[in-house]
Structure formats: C-alpha cells, structure tokens
C-alpha cells in the first residue's frame, strides 16, 4: 500500500514538476501565434523526455553514477569541459528565468515591481538549498504545482469544438503570415521547453543520492511514463487556451502576466489565484532544481563532494558554485534583461545543447559494464537512435534559425 501511495505521489509531483517557466512561455506564445499548428512538437518532445529521463534514471539507479560524472569519463576531459561550459551556461539562463518567474508570480499578487522581489526570491531559493529538508520541499512544490491544472479547467470552460481541435492538431500547416523559419524556430523552442536538460541532471543526481537501486526502477518508470505525458497534456492545454483566447484577438504573448489572463477571463478570481499559486510553485521548484544542477554539473565533472543531503561544511565547493550562480542569476535579472526573452533563449539553446548530454547517456545505456542486464532493448534503441538524429538536426539548425529570424521576431 505504501508503494502504491509512493508511486501515486511520484506521478503527481512529476505532473506539477513537468511544467516550468519555459513551458508556460513557449506554449502560450506558440498558441497565440501559431494556434495548434505546433502541438505535434509537444508530443515529440514529451516522447523524447520520457525516453531520455528513463535511460538516465536507469543508468543512475544501476551504475550509481550521475550524468556529468559519466560525461567526463566517456567523452574525456576536453570535450567534457566544453560540454560542461555549454550546459552550465544554458542551465544558468534557465535558472535566471525561473527566479524571475518566481518574482513575477509574487509581484502579480502583491503589486510590487518584480525587480524588487528578485533578491528575495534568490535568497529563498538559496536558503531552501542551504537549510531546509529538501525531500519535503520537493514534494510540496510538486503538489502545489498541480494548481496549474487550472489551465485544463480554463480550456474545459471555454468548451472548444473538440473535433476541430483534433483536426487542427493532426493537420498542421504554417500560418499564412508566418515564414517556415519562424515556424521552425518556435518549434525548436517548444521542443527545448519539453526536453529541458536540467530535469535530467537533477533526476539522475537525485537517483544517485537517494541510493536508488534496480529495484526502484518500477517507481522511476511509473513517474516517467505516466507523469511526464500528463505534464505534456497540461502543456497542450496552455497552448489551447492561448489559441482560443489570444489568437482571435491578435494578442502576442510578451509578458508572463499575460499567461494567466485566459484563466482569469473565463474562470474568475479563484481560478486566477490558484493559477498564480501554481506558477509560483512550478517556477520555485524549477529554480531549486536548476540551482542545484549548477552545483551538480561542476562538482561531478571535477569529482568534488556534492549532494543536497550533505552538510555544506563537507561540500563547500559545491555550495559555493550554487551561491555564486544564484547571486549572478539575480544580478543578471536585475540588470534589466527581459525575463521572457531570457526564457526563450534558454529553451532554444537547451534544445541545441541536448545531444551533448543525450549522446553519452544513450551509449552508456547500452554498455553492460555500467547497467549489466538492464541495457536498452531493441525498441528503446530504435527510438533512441531516431531521437539522436532529431537532436543533432535540431542542434545544427538552431543557431542559423536564431540569426535568420532575429530571435523569433
């Protein structure tokens, strides 16, 4: 019975934890601009993150090794270091966006400019990592994140014609006032939002630290196979809400405050309050995960002691990296960058950097030296290779598309 409860709780937190600022922004923007014509990308992205998270969770549980430990060992120190710098920088952008998301969510309730709330948000993110029992926090924020289901309520209240929605999703086309380049660029943004690499750094490091073993694979798979697709449905409901409310009014989404407007419009005050709580919880949870990931990646590359359960005195360098990252992220956000733009670039660059960490995981998931009998099956390997090809194509296309579209303008 305890096991069933654990699996159930895991799935719930996986749903709430799936959506972060990247998904909120990308799905609202694309819904408003492209209607449901990019919905298929979310499906491709969810299958990708399920595949990737399952492999890295399995590798972590069986070999007791986290992603960046393996990256350096398999790719060598040079390529490993280039990989570390790229991954660290992109994770930093994501963390900055999440901290800004926390500050904005609070600013929408207390009506103080989010700029003043940024240092407070950053402080609490650090404080939770430094002092607060983390397991409980993770579950709490995962569950509070379920308030984002208000997006589903919004869509249900809007009552679209489901047949035409299904038709639009399954017959995508490039809208007449968009170019193939902007279509592809926003497709990559959505893909990167669904397949964020920090989730995998965090997931695999957590599995190593919680001393998962092959026995825990059942729970891990339930979280991934059920939780992530449900999280993907939540993402699609954000997109559909934007399609129904924003697109007919020619509204472009450029501010996080706009994301909550469809819910306020159709559901009302209570719905809006719940949604803002959900956005706060989802971004705060993701801010914790990205801040920890900053420490994980560096510490695992250099072989330092790391972990959220280790005393700071026993892992000073790991904690120093986190402190410096959060501080730099807050300063970067205060400097006047547009949080929505930071989010966009973080998800697009995430997509471009995916092969760097995905490739070693795919190789190791085939290596009996690491995972013994738990190597990839034929089907997983087929999908795994197809995704490797997709990820490489995306990585090659990203920077040119970014230049051609001037960042999706």
């Amino acid at each position, binding site marked *: 019975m305890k096991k069933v409860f654990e699996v159930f709780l895991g799935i719930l937190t996986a749903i709430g934890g799936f959506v972060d600022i990247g998904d909120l922004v990308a799905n609202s923007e694309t819904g408003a601009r492209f209607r449901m014509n990019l919905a298929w990308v979310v499906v491709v992205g969810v299958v990708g993150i399920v595949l990737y998270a399952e492999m890295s969770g399995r590798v972590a549980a069986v070999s007791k090794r986290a992603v960046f430990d393996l990256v350096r060992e*398999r*790719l*060598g120190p040079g390529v490993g270091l280039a990989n570390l710098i790229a991954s660290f920088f992109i994770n930093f952008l994501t963390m900055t966006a999440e901290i800004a998301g926390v500050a904005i969510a609070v600013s929408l309730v207390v009506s103080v400019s989010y700029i003043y709330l940024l240092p407070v948000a950053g402080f609490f993110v650090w404080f939770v990592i430094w002092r607060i029992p983390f397991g409980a926090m993770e579950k709490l924020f995962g569950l509070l994140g379920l308030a984002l289901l208000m997006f589903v309520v919004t869509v249900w209240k809007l009552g679209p014609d489901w047949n035409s929605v299904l038709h639009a999703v399954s017959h995508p086309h490039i809208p007449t006032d968009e170019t193939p380049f902007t279509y592809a660029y926003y497709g990559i943004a959505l893909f990167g939002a669904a397949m964020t690499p920090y989730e995998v750094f965090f997931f695999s490091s957590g599995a190593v630290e919680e001393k998962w073993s092959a026995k825990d694979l059942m729970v891990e798979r339930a979280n991934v196979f059920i939780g992530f697709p449900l999280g993907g449905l939540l993402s699609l409901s954000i997109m559909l809400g934007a399609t129904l409310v924003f697109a007919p009014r020619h509204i472009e989404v450029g501010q996080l405050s706009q994301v909550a407007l469809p819910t306020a419009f159709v559901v009302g005050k209570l719905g809006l309050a719940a949604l803002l709580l959900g956005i706060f919880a989802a971004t705060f949870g993701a801010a914790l995960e990205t801040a920890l990931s900053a420490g994980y990646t560096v510490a695992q590359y250099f072989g330092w002691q790391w972990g959220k359960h280790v005393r700071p005195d026993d892992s000073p360098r790991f904690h120093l990296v986190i402190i410096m990252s959060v501080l730099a992220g807050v300063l970067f956000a205060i400097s006047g960058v547009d949080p929505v733009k930071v989010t966009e670039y973080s998800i697009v660059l995430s997509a471009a950097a995916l092969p760097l960490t995905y490739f070693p995981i*795919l*190789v190791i998931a*085939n*290596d*009996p*030296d690491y995972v013994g009998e738990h*190597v*990839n099956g*034929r089907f997983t*390997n*087929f999908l*795994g*290779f197809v995704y*490797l090809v997709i990820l490489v194509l995306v990585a090659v296309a990203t920077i040119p598309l970014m230049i051609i579209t001037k960042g999706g303008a």
Partner: protein
Amino acid sequence: MRLSELLHEPVFDADARPIGRVHDVRLVQDGPLQGLAGAAFRVDALVVGRAGLGTRLGFHRHDMRGPWPLKLLFERLARKAHYVEWKDVAAWDDGRVSLRVRVDDLARLPDSP
C-alpha cells in the same frame, strides 16, 4: 613522467613511417607488490591510430550491441587502430615513440583488453 605525455604522442615504425598517435594504453597488473591494491600496473601495449573515440565509448567490445548504426560507425573507426606491444617500442623520447617493427607486422585491436 606522466601518462598524458605518452598519450597523443606520434608513433613511427621501424622504417620511420608515421602510423598515428597513441590513443590508449593497456595496463596489466602483474608487477611487484605495491600496497593495498596489490601488484603494480605495467604498461603492456599501446593503442595507436584513430581508435580514440571508438574505444573510449566502448563500441569495440562485442557485448556493446546497440544502437547498431553507432556500433557500425565506431567499430569501423576502431578497426583502423593498431595494437603495439610495449616490447616492440624501441624508444620514447623527443616527443615521439619509435618502434622496432614495421607497420605491416602490427596486430589489430583485440576485442577485449
């Protein structure tokens, strides 16, 4: 001296023909007793050529089966590697490794260490 100084060194055969760089080193633990871990590790052979990434990723081993397109690619790279036993090394100095045998007499990379 350091292992990293041996890695990436260019290798020349008995006729002074270049045959590639050192990509990996095979160690055998059969030296004199050293302490807690047992016998000392002896440098037994060099992997020379373009095997770098292939062996580093483990694709030359038969128990690494998938994904087959990667396996095919990296196996092919690994097959281009030469296997040089340390006893065939004449000298290691001036940033180069010289062999006392000719390239045609060298073995291919064995399947497992």
